[in-house]
Each structure stands twice: as structure tokens, then as C-alpha cells.
């Protein structure tokens, strides 16, 4: 009876997990980077389950065989210092596993930190994604449009996200396209992604950033390049221009719906990269552009002394 129940529970759990896995975002990739990561995850789950099974098997064996109640009354456990061979095995095998994983990790690190292999050579779409409490601003400098809290991207083209923040550290994450990366206030990080197929996705800030954090998510839609171009044209025809004044209003803490503008905030509030990087600018924050010369001097000290 007991075994029957146990079997039932195990079956039930396996079925439950399998049904669940179908829809698990990270394991349901829509782009090459997420695919790489999902592969690593499945590979590590596979090898790691073997280790867990081996440990559990030894444990069960030992517990069944050497439990007090099963042993003869006069059984006295021996004194065993250790065994060279056994100890070598339990050192060597983990070392081999770690060595294997090290190779995997070096290869995949370089993969996810570069333009996806399949789309190499193509001109990437550059999107400046900046966060403010608790919104995401997406600037398309080449298309010269800007959106808030939603992101339209073309499929089959490399995407280069330039991330930074107007406040606390946030983390830009679209699970189905690839892993996250931090957006910080005084420097720009780069995230390489790409979408293989059209579809709707969830994106969010994954790093805790205060009261409005839970709702700090955005809507992502991948579409063909043609649809994307149509959308850009449509935006340019219909959307209001983004003024500095308007942008300052948008930065105020709070939540906003989805907004669309022509023009980006980059001309009047440049991203903290290059000359505008955090370690160069002064009291005025990312906006300080007027005393560029003076800053440049400081910058030269930087390179000479670091």
C-alpha cells in the first residue's frame, strides 16, 4: 500500500512538473541568447541530477543496511581512517565535472556577451533602455523615437541594448529573449539580444528598486522588420515630440502607462557613456554638458593615472 501511494505521488509530481515546464519562461526561449542559456540550464540540471541521485542512493543504501535495528547485537563498527582510492575518486570526479563546466561556461559567457552568432554581420538595432522610478524609457536613436514601458523589436536582427538608470540600480530582463543586466546611474552597460520569432513577451526590472518595484515591468513585442518599420513610420506621424520639460515630468517617481514620442531624450540628457560617463560628470548629473571642456581635462588625468 505504501509503495503504491509513493508511486502515485511520484507520478503526480513528474506530470505536474512536466506540464509546468512547457510554459516556464526561461525554458521557453524565443531568441538565440535565451536558447544558449536554456541549453546551459538543461545541461547543468542533467549532470547535477546524476550527482543528487548518486548521493541519495548511497544514503538510502547505508541507512537501510547499517541501521541499528537491523544489525546483530554484537556488531561493533570498525575504525576506518580512510581509503586513498575512494578519496581520490571523490576528488577527481568533481574536478572533472567542474573542468567540463568551466569550458562550457567560458564558451557560453563569450556567446551571451557578443552579437548572436546567427546574426553576425548584420547591422544591430540600438536601443537605449533607461530606467527611472519606476518606468522604462526606450530610445531608438536611429529611428529617432522613444517609448515608455513598452518595447517593439524586429525579429531576426541583432539588438543592442544600452542600459542605464536615472536612479537606483535596476536590472533589464526579458526572460524569453535572454538573461538580465544591470542598469546603473553613472555608466552604460550593453546587453546583446535577438528575437527569432514574432510574439508578445514580458519584460521587467529584476533588481529591487524601491516602493514601485513590483509593477516596474514592460511589454515586449517582437515583429518582422517590415511591421517594425511600419510602426516607426506610424509613430513619427502620430506621436508628440519629446521635450526636455516633458521628459523631466516623466522622470518623476511613479508609474505610467505606455507612452510614445518622436525624438529621444538623448540630445538633451545624454547617456552616461564616453565623455558623459559617471566618473567624469559633476554635480549636475547626466545632464551636465555645458562644461565639457573642463571635464575633458579631468578625463585626461584619468587615463594617465589609472
Amino acid at each position, binding site marked *: 500500500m505504501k509503495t503504491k501511494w509513493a508511486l502515485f505521488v511520484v507520478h503526480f509530481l513528474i506530470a505536474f512538473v512536466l506540464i509546468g515546464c512547457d510554459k516556464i519562461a526561461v525554458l521557453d526561449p524565443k531568441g538565440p541568447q535565451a536558447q544558449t542559456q536554456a541549453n546551459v540550464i538543461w545541461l547543468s540540471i542533467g549532470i547535477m541530477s546524476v550527482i543528487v541521485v548518486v548521493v541519495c542512493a548511497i544514503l538510502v543504501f547505508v541507512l537501510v543496511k547499517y541501521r541499528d535495528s537491523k544489525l546483530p547485537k554484537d556488531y561493533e563498527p570498525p575504525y576506518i581512517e580512510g581509503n586513498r582510492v575512494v578519496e581520490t575518486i571523490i576528488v577527481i570526479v568533481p574536478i572533472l565535472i567542474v573542468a567540463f563546466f568551466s569550458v562550457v561556461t567560458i564558451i557560453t559567457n563569450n556567446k551571451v556577451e557578443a552579437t548572436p552568432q546567427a546574426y553576425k554581420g548584420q547591422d544591430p538595432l540600438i536601443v537605449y533602455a533607461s530606467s527611472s522610478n519606476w518606468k522604462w524609457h526606450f530610445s531608438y536613436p536611429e529611428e529617432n523615437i522613444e517609448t515608455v514601458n513598452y518595447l517593439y523589436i524586429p525579429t531576426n536582427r541583432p539588438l543592442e541594448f544600452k542600459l542605464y538608470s536615472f536612479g537606483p540600480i535596476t536590472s533589464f530582463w526579458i526572460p524569453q529573449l535572454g538573461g538580465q543586466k544591470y542598469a546603473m546611474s553613472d555608466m552604460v552597460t550593453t546587453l546583446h539580444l535577438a528575437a527569432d520569432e514574432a510574439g508578445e513577451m514580458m519584460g521587467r526590472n529584476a533588481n529591487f528598486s524601491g516602493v514601485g518595484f513590483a509593477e516596474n515591468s514592460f511589454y515586449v513585442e517582437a515583429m518582422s522588420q517590415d511591421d517594425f518599420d511600419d510602426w516607426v513610420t506610424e509613430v513619427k506621424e502620430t506621436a508628440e515630440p519629446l521635450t526636455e520639460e516633458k521628459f523631466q515630468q516623466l522622470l518623476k517617481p511613479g508609474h505610467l502607462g505606455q507612452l510614445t514620442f518622436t525624438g529621444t531624450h538623448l540630445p538633451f540628457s545624454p547617456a552616461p557613456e564616453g565623455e558623459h560617463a*559617471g*566618473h*567624469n*560628470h*559633476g*554635480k549636475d548629473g547626466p545632464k551636465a554638458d555645458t562644461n565639457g571642456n*573642463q571635464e575633458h581635462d*579631468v578625463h585626461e*588625468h*584619468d587615463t*594617465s*593615472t*589609472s
Partner: protein
Amino acid sequence: MKVDHSQPLEYSTEQNRLNILGFWIFLGAEIMLFGTLFTCYFTLVNRTSDGPIGAEIFEITPVLMETFLLLTSSFVIGLGIHAMRLGNKKAMQAFFILTLLLGIGFLAFEITEFITYYEEGATLQTSAFTSILFTTLGTHGAHVSLGLFWGLFIILQVRKRGITPVTANKSFIFSLYWHFLDVVWIFIFTFIYMKGLTQL
């Protein structure tokens, strides 16, 4: 309390040996403390924002004076411990007092230096660089100031109670502390001042 006469007075009891080893381990932690400050200093040294860089505010003369004063005081307290081992209470006290005077001299130079920095517009709040500069120097300076009081207490105790296993132990541990502050200063001198002045 068992006293082992084959060893110098400061090592002569079990508790004394424990104290000295414990203090060495504490110095290990202090190395890490200053190591962290140096970590932060090296990370932030170029983040000068609108404020001055090191070469603009550092001056060689006061730095050399501070170095000389602290080096000498470290030497003098070494002589003090030597005198203590010879049992020469008078010489020991003289050396300890001289050490503290040199320490006060060092602090005086450092404070003047800080005032100059402030006058030149490099304050604690100017930039990440000045913040970490003042914090690193200040942590060392605070250690020296604390050492002055500690040394004074020990001189008073030696004066009143003579050179006993207890006071010898305390004096020796204080000397370790003082030498250590000199070691830290060597690194400050090298990696903050010399490196900053020469802009290497």
C-alpha cells in the same frame, strides 16, 4: 599566576603570551581593514568629478615631515622596548614620552595638511576621491590619536607600578600597535602620496 623567568617579561606568563598572539591576530584584521581602504582608494582615485586630483593638492614637504616623524617615533618606541627589557625604567619612560611627542607632531602636521586641503577646496564632500582620501588618512590618524591616549595610560601605569609582567606586556603590545601604524603609513606614503604626486 605562573611566571616563566626564562623569557622576556612581556612573554613571561601564559596570559601574556595569549595577549601578544591575540594582538598579532588583531593586527591581521587591521591589515585587512586598511587593505579595504586601499581597495576603495584605488577604485575611486580617478573619480575626481569637479574637484582637484591628488597631484594638485599634495605637497611633498609636510608629507616628508610626517613620514620622518612617524618613522622616528617607531624607532624610538623600539628603543623603549629595548630599555624595558634591560629593566631601565627611566630610559623606557623617556623613550615612550618621546614617542608620543613625535606622534603629536605627526598629528599636528596632518591636521595642518587637512586644513590646507579644505582651503584649496578639497573637502570631505567634494568628490569620491576626496571622500576616500580623507577617510583613509583619517582612519590612520584616528588610530594614531587613540594610540596617544593608550600610550599615555601605559606611561602612567609604568610610572606607578614599575616594570611588571603586566605592564611590560601592555607596553610591548602598545609598541606592536605603534609599529603597525608606521607600516600603514609607509603604504599611505607610497601609494597615496608618492603615486599621486608623480601621477604614475
